[in-house]
């Protein structure tokens, strides 16, 4: 029986594999293979818009089989050399067998154990904040410490920086390397300052290229008990940037957190296609990117979100499929579009994060407040809310989550394409005193009460 290929073998295949141009891959190979699998497993038109949370576990298992088959059929494309890295069935089985079912993150009393979960698993889905929302150099330390001070938030990621001491940082330039070393150092210091030295981290969000990632695991910087963030382009593509990050992380003895969203409306087509593409990518990344955790992300390119019905349904099936059929520690993101201080953002979180948690993901990161598009549009209060929902919804029955979604979706559904982007952090959060401003807190309290009254067990944890 063949084993999981080693790094040398993966690098060899990424040079010597079958030739395929990126265009051919994008518009022909991927769409054709996805269509073929949807047909083979009779998975076309399974989306049920009236019930955005899938409750048919047999269907979820069929999606898993199709995703597994798709992984074997496609492999991943190395864009740097137009070569396909293929993984065969025995290798993939060995890879999935070897992947950890439980991962220890951080240290001391802030340590967290991330576990492989199943749908409605009472073991809480962990939550990390935030995503790479850009932040000014002035606000970044306060926002980051503010997030670390939320005891509900399990893992600290923080936002993206774009300059260092006033100098614009350019990707692929020494300024990126410098910026990321500095950011990593401060990230560690801020966790200590917040009284959570051993809180697990994710780094480095500002590493657009491999240069920014070289800080990971070095002295005084992101620890190897933190996760090393390595995102790769959809659908199922790697390149030198991503593989440099992988090699560096492994050399440091660290943990790879890989991920890439299956794109609804993109190359894999309909939500059903994006589900099997997301599953295939999740499986393959454990073989090709040496993932420790991650996989299971989705995005709808027509809505620039995934808290719409199609996106929620796809998230639910993907995580049910992965969690019922593997022991991987998978990851889902709810891509909100509304911004800080709005009740829409809180409802988008309630709906999106609940679906991911109850469907069996091991962890989630967020929020993508204001779609992740505006500088300083992220409040630690919204991070706290995400984590509260993540923990509370973990053990919920899928039927109840479906009811919750149907109840709260109307609060924002019509505005997804024209979202209320809210206010910058300075107008909703007292940066220096680490607490919400009254108006934003009142909105939070209102939504929280409604969620609790509906049955989300918010105080049970």
């Amino acid at each position: 029986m063949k084993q999981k290929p080693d790094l040398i073998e993966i690098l060899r295949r990424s040079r010597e594999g079958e030739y395929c141009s990126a265009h051919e891959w994008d518009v022909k190979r991927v769409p054709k293979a996805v269509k073929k699998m949807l047909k083979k497993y009779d998975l076309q038109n399974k989306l049920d818009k009236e019930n955005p949370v899938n409750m048919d576990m047999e269907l979820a298992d069929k999606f898993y089989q199709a995703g597994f088959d798709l992984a074997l059929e496609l492999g991943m494309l190395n864009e740097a050399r137009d070569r396909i890295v293929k993984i065969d069935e025995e290798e993939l089985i060995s890879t999935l067998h070897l992947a950890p079912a439980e991962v220890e993150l951080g240290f001391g009393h802030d340590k967290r154990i991330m576990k492989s979960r199943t749908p409605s698993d009472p073991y809480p889905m962990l939550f990390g904040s935030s995503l790479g929302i850009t932040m000014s150099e002035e606000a970044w330390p306060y926002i980051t410490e503010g997030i670390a001070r939320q005891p509900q938030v399990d893992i600290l990621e923080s936002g993206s920086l774009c300059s260092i001491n006033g100098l614009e940082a350019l990707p692929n330039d020494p300024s990126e390397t410098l910026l990321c070393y500095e950011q990593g150092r401060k990230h560690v210091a801020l966790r200590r300052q917040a009284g959570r030295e051993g809180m697990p981290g994710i780094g480095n969000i500002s590493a657009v290229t491999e240069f920014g990632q070289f800080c990971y695991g070095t002295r005084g910087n992101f620890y190897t008990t933190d996760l090393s963030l390595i995102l790769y382009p959809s659908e199922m593509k790697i390149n030198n940037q991503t593989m440099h990050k992988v090699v560096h992380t492994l050399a440091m003895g660290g943990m790879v957190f890989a991920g890439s969203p299956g794109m609804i409306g993109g190359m894999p087509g309909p939500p059903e296609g994006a589900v099997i593409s997301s599953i295939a990518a999740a499986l393959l990344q454990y073989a090709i990117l040496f993932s420790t955790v991650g996989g299971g992300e989705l995005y709808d390119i027509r809505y620039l979100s995934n808290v719409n019905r199609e996106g929620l349904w796809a998230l639910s099936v993907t995580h049910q499929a992965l969690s019922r059929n593997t022991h991987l520690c998978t990851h889902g993101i709810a891509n909100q579009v509304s911004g800080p201080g709005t009740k829409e953002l809180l409802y988008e979180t309630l709906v999106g994060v609940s679906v991911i948690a109850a469907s069996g993901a091991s962890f989630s990161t967020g929020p993508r407040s204001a779609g992740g598009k505006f500088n300083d549009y992220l409040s630690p209060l919204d991070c706290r809310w995400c984590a509260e929902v993540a923990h509370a919804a973990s053990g919920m029955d899928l039927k109840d989550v479906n009811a919750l979604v149907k109840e709260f979706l109307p609060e924002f559904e019509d505005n997804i394409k024209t979202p209320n982007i809210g206010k910058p952090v300075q107008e909703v959060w007292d940066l220096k005193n680490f607490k919400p401003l009254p108006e934003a807190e009142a909105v939070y309290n209102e939504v929280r009460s409604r969620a609790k009254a509906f049955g989300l067990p918010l105080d049970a944890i």
Partner: protein
Amino acid sequence: MSDLINKLYEAVIEGEEDDALEIAKASIEAGLEPLKVIRGGIQAAMDLMGDQFENGEAFLPELMLAGDAATLAMEVLLAKIKEDGGEGADSGTVVIGVMAGDHHDIGKNLVRAILSANGFKVIDLGIDVGVRDFIETAKRENAKIIACSTLITTSLPYQKELIETLDAMKIREKYQVILGGGPVTPQWTNMIKADGYSNTASECVELCKQLVSRDLEGGAADPIIIGALNA
């Protein structure tokens, strides 16, 4: 409508590049008026594809394949119009790419598909494109428009560098430089003296059409801004 126009319409929708090219040639041989063929066979097909994309009935690869088929057919039809001494249908060449460092290409792919569907010849340089590559390609292809996409704030300065380099090379006036992607704003577009910005791929068609028709030199006037989402 002529049988050939119907066939071209089908070929574009199916993304059959070779068929689309052959049918376009056949329509010329059959003496059909190229503008009519473009409208009925290509434009109508792409309008349908655009609607289907919005409604979730067609997806990005179909849109891109249809765009490619439309481009090929369009080329021969436009050549015929020129040969006959006509003008007005040639939308021009656009060089598009994602700025250096940045690998986000879904938005760029959408823009590329929709522009080619609307009669522009689009040269796609892909992701992680250096300033020099944009300029060299635009010169070589005789492009009118350079379209720069980026979703990463730290890649924005490369847009500025592109314009400064065109200035330094004294060829700024030859190109309309347009910008798009998450962190790009109208303010930024104004500040770096680019020629246009649009928020979405479909608005980019209008943007390019306006730029081509206003017939001013690159950098000579205030930029055209379409559909900004403001903070």
